[in-house]
């Protein structure tokens, strides 16, 4: 099936099988390997991207054909003109990552979270990121990272 998906502002026109998952479309057809696959059951959130501006979506639980005509933002689209997004800066400043595998999904889920709740409490953040797993950090510094970004006024 021929589809056209806008990713980080650029349109990718490809011919894919209907069963191609959005995660693999982004990674392999678009060459954007920042979105990761970590599980089989939509549990881990490593694949989270943002659709149509503010909807966090698990890209392993969506077919690329569903994204035809839609807009997707991946982690590669967060920084603008080489300037890190406050969330990216927050993760770096607060040591919110270790192996980096969950990080893109965490960033995108946080992005959507802040879009809907620009001033989240710690409890809001912990609740809001409960669809994303991390094995390395124990979440504590991830929470601090999102708090830093929110304080900087990046809702």
């Amino acid at each position, binding site marked *: 099936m021929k589809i056209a998906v806008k990713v980080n502002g650029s349109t990718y026109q490809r011919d894919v099988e209907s069963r191609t998952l959005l995660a*693999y479309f982004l990674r392999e057809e678009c060459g954007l*390997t920042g979105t*990761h696959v970590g599980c089989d059951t939509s549990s881990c959130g490593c694949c989270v991207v943002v659709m149509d501006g503010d909807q966090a979506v698990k890209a392993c639980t969506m077919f690329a054909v569903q994204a035809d005509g839609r807009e997707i933002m991946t982690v590669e689209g967060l920084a603008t003109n080489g300037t890190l997004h406050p969330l990216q800066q927050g993760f*770096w400043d607060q040591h919110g*990552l*270790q*192996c980096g595998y969950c990080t893109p999904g965490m960033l995108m889920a946080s992005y959507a979270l802040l879009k809907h709740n620009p001033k989240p409490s710690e409890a809001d953040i912990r609740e809001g990121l*409960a669809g994303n797993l991390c*094995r390395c950090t*124990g979440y504590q510094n991830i929470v601090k990272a999102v708090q830093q970004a929110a304080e900087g006024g990046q809702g």
Partner: protein
Amino acid sequence: MSAQATAGQSVGVAMKRKEDPRFIQGKGNYVDDLSFPGMLYLALVRSPYPHAEIKNIDIAEAMKVPGVKAVITGKDLEAAGLGWLPTFHGFDKQMVLAIGKVLFQYQEVAAVFAESREAAADGAEVVEVEYEPLPVVADPFTSKTDKVLLRPDREGKTNHIFHWEVGDRDGTARALESSPKRISQRMWFQRCHPAPLEPCGCVAYFDTMGRLQFHVTSQAPHVYRTALALVTGIAEDKIHVISPDLGGGFGNKVPVYPGYVCAIVGALKIGRPVKWVESRTENLTSTGFARDYHMDVEIGATEDGRVTALRVATTADHGAFDAAADPSKYPAGIFGIVTGSYTFPVAHAEVDAYFTNKAPGGIAYRCSFRVTEASFAIERGMDILADELGIDSVELRRRNFIKKDQFPYPSALGFTYDSGDYHKTLDTALEKIGYAALLKEQAEQRAKGELMGIGVSTFTEVVGAGPSKHFDILGIKMFDSAEIRIHPTGAGIVRAGTKSQGQGHETTWAQIVAEELGLDPQTIMVEEGDTDTAPYGLGTYASRSTPVAGAAITMAARRIREKARKVAAHLLEVGEADVEWKDYKFQVKGVPAKVVTMKEVAFAAYTNMGPNEPGLEATYYYDPPNMTYPNGAYIAVVDVDREIGEVKVRRFVAVDDCGTVINPMVVEGQIHGGLTEGFAIAFMQEIQYDSDGNNLNTNFTDYLVPTSLETPHWETASTVTPSPHHPLGAKGVGESPNVGSPAAFVNAVIDALSPLGVRHIDMPVTRDKVWRAIRDAESGKA
């Protein structure tokens, strides 16, 4: 939280990580990110049966699937001499693809190579395997009876893999017999799995020079290279192993897996690159599990609570093959640390291991080679003893601690603990958590029938494998290495034999070099994981990197400093003996004005070295003289909702002593992560097999990883007792939180339930188990 280091002090600085920019921009370089022209995908066919003979494998339908290029089976590998793989422990072998029979559910049976992921999956689905089920051995106690022989391929016709023991059997028995007080408890440290978020995988291809280019999720790339050379017969110079960014390891990425071998064979036979990346289900069901130790713990004591003897007898479930990645002389890992932080005059430990119809493994999940099991045994045991004696569990520990003036301390089981101040570490934790006030509150809560618990774990663990006298993997001694080269403009590169999977080596190794040489850590590049360029090392696991490679880096840097001193003397126009290293500079003794910086010396090493050898580089292979012994004091406070059996962790204080700390921010992050893993193990994780050998926890809906909502807030602190034998005094810390925390959690729950007479609950301490324990205790059924 993080601080910037400049030329000058670097060790001890909470410097922001240098590797982060690529990860936060989604530009990490993980194995599945790799793609090569003509690359094929490998999908493995796996057995639904836990134990069955393979009557026939028919690949005809699979070969008809468009895009499928080849299908191989165990028979094909056997013909090529690659049917079996030696396990890292060295005394067993495991099938690559099943030969003759399958021995655990999800075992690899056939390999399908296809043009796309989809075609490989479609092909794998229609490989027809005819099985004839055999009786299943689903636990080590049944295995012990040898009624069903699992491994007819082995010389010894028994399911008993090995017996290992250490200590004074008779002395311990006598001491226990004559002890006025004695406790005995069976504890099962359940089978669990490290489950890093990135599953295992590789891409293999043979390049135009006939070299095997092997990109793989490996925590030990050099060991892989040597092992592959030995197994395949390919000359070691023709094998290039590259371990790129790893999305977590936790011991899961130490063993060599069948998928890797199949990918290499496929690449060789078909002449195209082959990618194999497993699914989460495959990861949880077939790669190296952790723990599964059934331990009988006995402790003897005097009336006033001085321990007299410790005896632990363990039945170990190793699964279908002995693939426990232990150093070869340690089939039960470093379980001998089981005397923990206490002055046991005599002790004995033994482990008997058995095969079962389950996935192979045993050494993983930050276990420090079975130190997690040992630590759990002693810390639970001490609490049970405290209960029996009617002594406060903190007081009991204090009474039996190795005192700080007793170091180096020779334990009853043959270890020489390097240093520690256990009383100080414990006191720090007690103060931080407000122990006295908590005890008071607990008394009040108990009067109201509320179930509040305080659990303590004061562990000593052993890491830094290890001295060549004792430690080897497949014969290769467990040294580690560093190669440092400083460039003319004062920047540099350090290559080490370790391989970070998130531990931050790109930052911490640079900090060591910067500290030793007075350079800017921002311009010291760190490289690991490429066997063509990195010096030979044993990899990163069991918290060995800082103790061993960190020492190698320090010593290599000091070699550079010695060379640099000669050049400095030339620049300062004095004799070598008149130059000293002071305040991160070379100075003429007694003439503070006459200084020259390392940066200036670096330039001179290439442009004005005088009679000295040009350049500025050094290599060091470090054979540690001893292990290191980090310790900690962890305290958990819990509240139990008796109606639903839910345990809420109200507070958790972790005080760690890992000696000198290179980067406090990195250490704190490691503690947070390890405590979260310990929390998961204590309350929700288990790889269970039913009595028919079916694996019940095959994906993340059943094998539970806690989210940000369940995970408690961690309060951390540290004491610092440097290791006297490590050049930086550093001990390593990655395993500590996983070693020490499960017992703290369980001790807290049992403490909460102790007014009801509950004595022990095996992990995972689920709501059902807690509710049941309370109900049975209250109805007198216990």
